[in-house]
């Protein structure tokens, strides 16, 4: 795996999201459907900003602690801070704020697990930053490839104090 560039960033971001409850295996089976639901909503309300809008996946629970059936994962999309959101179609909005350690990766889908481990074990636990108790997330900078071995740009955001 290529060595990621690591940055510390203070962010304020508004997102719309659809939340899934269940195992990560079940989530992966439903991810495309959830993403399409989000995109349809964003198109309907004209929320997509070309070359700016990004898709995120937020991991609300720790799979080593929470039971598979209780895991919550959200597919989210950045929207402008002043966007008015009509929360009537299973779509919820929220703000994501605070300080994050961000790993900027160029990797293939098969390397995601290794990238997450690297963020926690190589950069967070061995560094000077303290973890903050909120959810981490992935942000897709370029579209993830269809082939398992092809690469794309993905940022991993780990909340820190």
């Amino acid at each position, binding site marked *: 795996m290529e060595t990621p560039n690591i940055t510390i960033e203070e962010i304020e971001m508004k997102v719309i999201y659809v939340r899934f409850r269940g195992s990560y295996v079940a989530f992966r089976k439903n991810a495309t459907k959830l993403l399409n639901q989000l995109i349809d909503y964003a198109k309907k309300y004209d929320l997509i900003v070309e070359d700016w809008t990004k898709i995120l996946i937020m991991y609300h629970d720790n799979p080593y*602690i929470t039971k598979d059936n209780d895991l919550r994962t959200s597919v989210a999309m950045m929207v402008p801070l002043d966007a008015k959101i009509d929360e009537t179609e299973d779509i919820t909005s*929220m703000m994501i704020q605070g300080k994050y350690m961000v790993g900027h990766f160029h990797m293939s889908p098969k390397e995601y697990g290794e990238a997450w481990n690297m963020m926690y074990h190589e950069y967070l636990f061995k560094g000077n930053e303290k973890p903050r108790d909120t959810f981490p997330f992935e942000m897709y900078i370029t579209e993830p490839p269809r082939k398992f071995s092809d690469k794309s740009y993905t940022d991993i955001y780990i909340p820190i104090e």
Partner: protein
Amino acid sequence: MNYQVLINKAEDYIENNLSKRIKLEDIADAVGLSQYHFHRIFHTHSKETIAQFITRIKMERSGIYLVVNKEISITEIAYRYGYCDASSYNKAFKKHYACSPSEYRNRKNIQVNE
């Protein structure tokens, strides 16, 4: 607002207020419903009551926190997760994990170091 959005908003409120003693009325206020109406919706569409959900999330999150932040005392962690003292936190923790926070911290340390 449909029930799924209400549950999401309630969960987000809880996530953002883990350090407080969260009451049903606070969550109901945050999602704009009466306590009765909110409690009924949550219980109908979730396998847990709101109180069970709050306790589980606090236990899971504090469990991670105490393993990752080994230098922080159990008493401080109790306060961080909205418990008024270490004793009530210990009691809730033992009920959830069947061991004390200190035992859990030591046990997980061993797993991490193996």
